[in-house]
């Protein structure tokens, strides 16, 4: 079919491309600017000369950051929490999602369990009681404070559950006739069949642990126990969170090492930027999984 384009349509299309191009540019421009600053010399950055391309290109700020003990210590705390948190989260997510994906006619406790889990995400005791609990359990300043409170991530459980539900029930019936129990069904049939869903959920868990920082600030008293994002949070807010006049604040901002901060921001974002191409693809899948209703 031949579609004739009217003049009005052509004008619209041109503006549409321009407008969307501008929107995309505005989204990424702040990042490019700060990236350029991180790769520029201190004086060029302080003089406000850097736009979207480094001025007096140098990687000194990156070298300085990577040579700094606090940064490296925090990096390893992050690695530790991501790995430990990942295994706890994924195992619990699979173990929780599988029974909940059974029909309530087969597993009559299913709905009671699901109310139990859903209520835990829609009502909360708030941060003070949670903090006190962590304190009384003796978990402050330990890695467990970063991985145990979020051990069951209900949103990932829902995603996996929806995927498990899509698998035909006949599999289960056939397995029973062969004398298998639910453990065997989960381990030998559901897990191998759910690799795409498990990959999606895995990425979400890894990103989630890498990105969280407030728990580090809340539960860690000693700086050396901060994960990277918590450490970075204290680095970037030091200039704005003090009570001072506008003049003082600007002075401090000028002398403070702008390129050094920028470099640390990008080093911390680097793992996410590296997995981003996969993330986008898997996210679309996750979206499809999540939208499936039982």
């Amino acid at each position, binding site marked *: 079919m031949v579609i004739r384009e009217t003049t009005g349509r052509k004008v619209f299309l041109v503006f549409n491309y321009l407008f969307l191009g501008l929107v995309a540019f505005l989204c990424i421009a702040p990042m490019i600017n700060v990236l350029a600053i991180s790769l520029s010399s201190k004086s060029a950055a302080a003089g406000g000369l850097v736009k979207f391309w480094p001025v007096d290109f140098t990687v000194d700020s990156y070298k300085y950051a990577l040579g700094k003990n606090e940064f490296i210590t925090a990096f390893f705390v992050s690695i530790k929490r991501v790995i430990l948190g990942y295994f706890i989260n994924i195992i619990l997510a699979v173990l929780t999602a599988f029974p909940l994906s059974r029909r309530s006619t087969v597993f009559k406790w299913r709905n009671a369990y699901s109310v139990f889990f859903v209520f835990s995400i829609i009502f909360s*005791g708030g941060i003070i009681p949670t903090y006190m609990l962590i304190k009384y359990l003796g978990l402050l300043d330990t890695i467990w404070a970063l991985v145990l409170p979020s051990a069951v991530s209900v949103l990932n459980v829902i995603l996996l559950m929806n995927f498990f539900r899509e698998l035909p029930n006949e599999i289960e019936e056939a397995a029973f006739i062969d004398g298998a129990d639910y453990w065997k069904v989960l381990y030998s049939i559901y897990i191998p069949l759910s690799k795409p869903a498990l990959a999606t959920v895995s990425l979400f868990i890894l990103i989630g642990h890498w990105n969280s920082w407030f728990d580090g600030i809340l539960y860690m008293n000693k700086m050396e126990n901060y994960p990277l994002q918590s450490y970075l949070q204290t680095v970037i807010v030091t200039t704005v969170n003090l009570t001072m006049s506008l003049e003082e604040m600007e002075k401090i901002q000028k002398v403070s090492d702008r390129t050094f901060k920028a470099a640390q921001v990008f080093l911390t974002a680097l793992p996410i930027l590296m997995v981003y191409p996969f993330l986008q693809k898997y996210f679309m899948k996750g979206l499809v999984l999540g939208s499936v209703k039982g």
Partner: protein
Amino acid sequence: MKRKSLQQLPLHLMLLPGVIFTLIFSYIPMLGIVIAFQKFVPARGIFKSKWVGLENFIYLLDMPNTFQVLWNTVYIAIMKIIAGLIVPIIISLLLNEVGNKIFKRTVQTVVFLPYFLSWVILGGILIDVLSPSDGIVNKFLGILGIEPIFFLGDDKVFPYTMVISDVWKNFGYSTVVYLAALTNIDPGLYEAAIIDGAGHWKRTIHITLPGIVPIITLMAVLSLGNVLNAGFEQIFTLYSPLVYRTGDIIDTFVYRIGMVNAQYGVATAVGLFKSVVSFMFIMLSNKLAYKYAGYRVL
């Protein structure tokens, strides 16, 4: 009958670890809400701290900034909800008109990126680019002859800075959701409309838009649960005493009273208020979501 319940034992065992963790880390803190009715001293714990009834709540009502904080929270949260609904609809409809696949994918990829970065990363970037003296935004405004704006330090501007930067982080997500919904619209409808002589504009109004109304309704209704969530991680990273008047929200208020000033009872009282109100809104939004979109969480 007996055999059947035996078979189900593995299911209960699988759920056991998740149930235990949830009991400890979600349900025990819910019991900890009693702190709101105590003059809580950590060394004494919840069993030996002094009970004070509603004293913490009365103290809050007498505090001059309680209502200001509540207002700030609702004001910022509602602006975020509205902007977070409208912007992605417009962008996804415009992207849907784009014929060039590479351009479309590039725009999608770029606008979705900030969603995956934490508020610490985005905060670090924002603090730099929005600086009144050296930031690129004010440099650019300077070229246009506009006086530097202190986006993060001027309490008249701060709430809007929060809304716009929140849109920046999150609109890519909803845009992708709407685009996915748009691809599900039956192409036959468009073909029929073209035969009937409907132009692009008419097709957008009568086919495209109605095609995504269910998902828009769902997103709108579900966002109701966020009326008291003005964005703790964002504001905690970007605010300062300069902007407390308009930028202090319930969550940052609770953090400061509780964790900084150690007034645990008062902070828990505020937290309890927030939990209860949020709970009611979430229940309402899920009722509506089920009624209008057939949506169920679990």
